[in-house]
């Protein structure tokens, strides 16, 4: 703080609290709705304070009655997809960045530009032809089909390249003089020195993977392969009857909890990784 202005500080806090309340309001309403029964959620005005049905709704959701896909299965599918995407992206990016930074080989720049090009082809742009490729490989309704087309990532490769550039050359020379092979150097020096970047990237990519919607919507037709995020849309389209809001909101809560917890508990690493990666 530059100068002491108690009044200005007070106003800042008040406005911030109001602003944060506004941002959190939709989340609050969701939690409240998840704690009431179906009947209460058909009466106007809707409640703004929690009810006592929270555990009952949660139990009902996990009992799986009346759902096309049981929630524990969709949660498992989401977890598998998110982990495959995040771990897969990190692994293939870190080794390709290692090759591009530490080796001299033919077509190095060609490969680099090819990876760069993927930055310009988000899945939303190439959905139809990518869908055809997956269908031709018989990868519809499989974990591989859900995750592999989203795994190649220029951003992660760039970020690792940036990190490797800050590792002193002397370390590599020293390890070479000591007779360590390139892969030995990779595992003993490069990976330990990129630990924080790997962690930050994991948070960002886990959220990216968990929150995928359009792609799982296209490649899964078997309810057993649905992810929890996309199952919400089916619940909203419950035909003629009014949607069952108490269960929809409970599902939404369960579906957004894992990424929220990851972001809150790894906040420091995540914020640093996010704001650094763009520099």
């Amino acid at each position, binding site marked *: 703080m530059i100068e002491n202005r108690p009044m200005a500080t007070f106003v800042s806090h008040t406005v911030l609290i109001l602003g944060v309340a506004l941002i959190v309001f*939709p989340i609050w309403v*969701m939690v409240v709705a998840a704690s009431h029964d179906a009947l209460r959620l058909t009466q106007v005005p809707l409640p703004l304070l929690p009810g006592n049905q929270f555990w009952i709704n949660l139990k009902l959701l996990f009992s799986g009655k009346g759902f096309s896909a049981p929630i524990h299965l969709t949660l498992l599918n989401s977890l598998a997809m998110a982990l495959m995407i995040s771990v897969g992206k990190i*692994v293939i990016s870190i080794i390709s960045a290692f090759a591009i930074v530490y080796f001299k080989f033919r077509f190095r720049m060609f490969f680099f530009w090819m990876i760069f090009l993927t930055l310009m*082809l988000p899945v939303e742009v190439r959905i139809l032809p990518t869908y055809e490729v997956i269908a031709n490989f018989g990868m519809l309704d499989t974990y591989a089909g859900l995750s592999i087309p989203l795994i190649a990532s220029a951003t992660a490769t760039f970020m690792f390249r940036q990190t490797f550039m800050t590792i002193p050359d002397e370390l590599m*020379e020293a390890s070479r003089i000591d007779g360590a092979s390139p892969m030995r150097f990779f595992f003993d020096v490069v990976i330990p020195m990129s630990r924080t970047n790997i962690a930050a990237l994991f948070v960002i990519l886990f959220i990216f993977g968990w929150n995928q919607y359009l792609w799982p919507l296209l490649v899964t037709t078997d309810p057993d392969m649905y992810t929890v995020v996309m199952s919400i849309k089916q619940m909203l389209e419950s035909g003629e009857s009014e949607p069952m809001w108490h269960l929809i909101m409970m599902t939404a809560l369960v579906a957004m909890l894992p990424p929220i917890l990851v972001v809150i508990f790894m906040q420091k690493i995540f914020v640093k990784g996010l704001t650094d990666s763009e*520099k």
Partner: protein
Amino acid sequence: MHKRVHYNTSYLPYLLVAPQITITLLFFIWPAVQALYQSFLLEDAFGLSTEFVWFDNFAELYDSENYLNSFTRTAFFSVSVAALSMGFALFFAALADRVIKGSHTYRTLLIIPYAVAPVLAGTLWLFLFNPTLGIVPYFLDIVSINWNHKLNSGQAMSLVIIAAAWKQVSYNFLFFVAAMHSIPKSLIEAAAIDGAGPLHRFRTIIFPLISPTTFFLLVVNIIYAFFDTFGIIHAITSGGPGNSTEILVYKVFNDGFVGLDLGGSAAQSVILMFIVILLTVVQFKYVERKVEY
């Protein structure tokens, strides 16, 4: 770009880049080439015959009022999302920069929307603004505003803009806070000693100094609004009422998977690809310049 010293093994680097290059070729380059190829084809509705029609699909898009409307709609949508979201985030960041106590709590709460999937964000806002049940229409009714985004296209557009901007506030907030944090304290102190108040300092020092971040965020927000808001629109309006919230990405999906107009959808994909390339080039030009500073 590259280390001064490097290894000279013959096959190892190829093995290391192989997984990424394979995936890139199979799932990025090949589909992109396919999209390009299909955009020159005309296929009948049953997929029985295809005809090479050169630029007919593009010409058709150019003549289609529906498509051109979708273009202006997308531009309006993305600029509104970017402006709303960045405006809020900048405001919060400027305030959070002032206070010391509690800033961690504010940040923790403000980053929550980042972790919420677009389709879930859409569901939350749909619930809040549900015409028959929602809590917001209930209060709007008291001041005699009749809310029904299922019929009123202006209201539908506002709702998807609000939901999309809400989700992006976190990201913008974090970047603005980081940018303000990197401004040397001595500059601000010198201005304060010269008698400049908080607002004056913000306008003449802080805002100009964070302008590179602002520009960067503008590009990122527009890319976000173009491509990452599919789930929000799918949950809230499905492009309706009429086509009033059908942005370009939604139209590619709708024409390709629902309307089964493969050539038209591929032509739209190709146009979108050019837009991404343009935006990425702008973004990288800017990053390059920043590195020189």
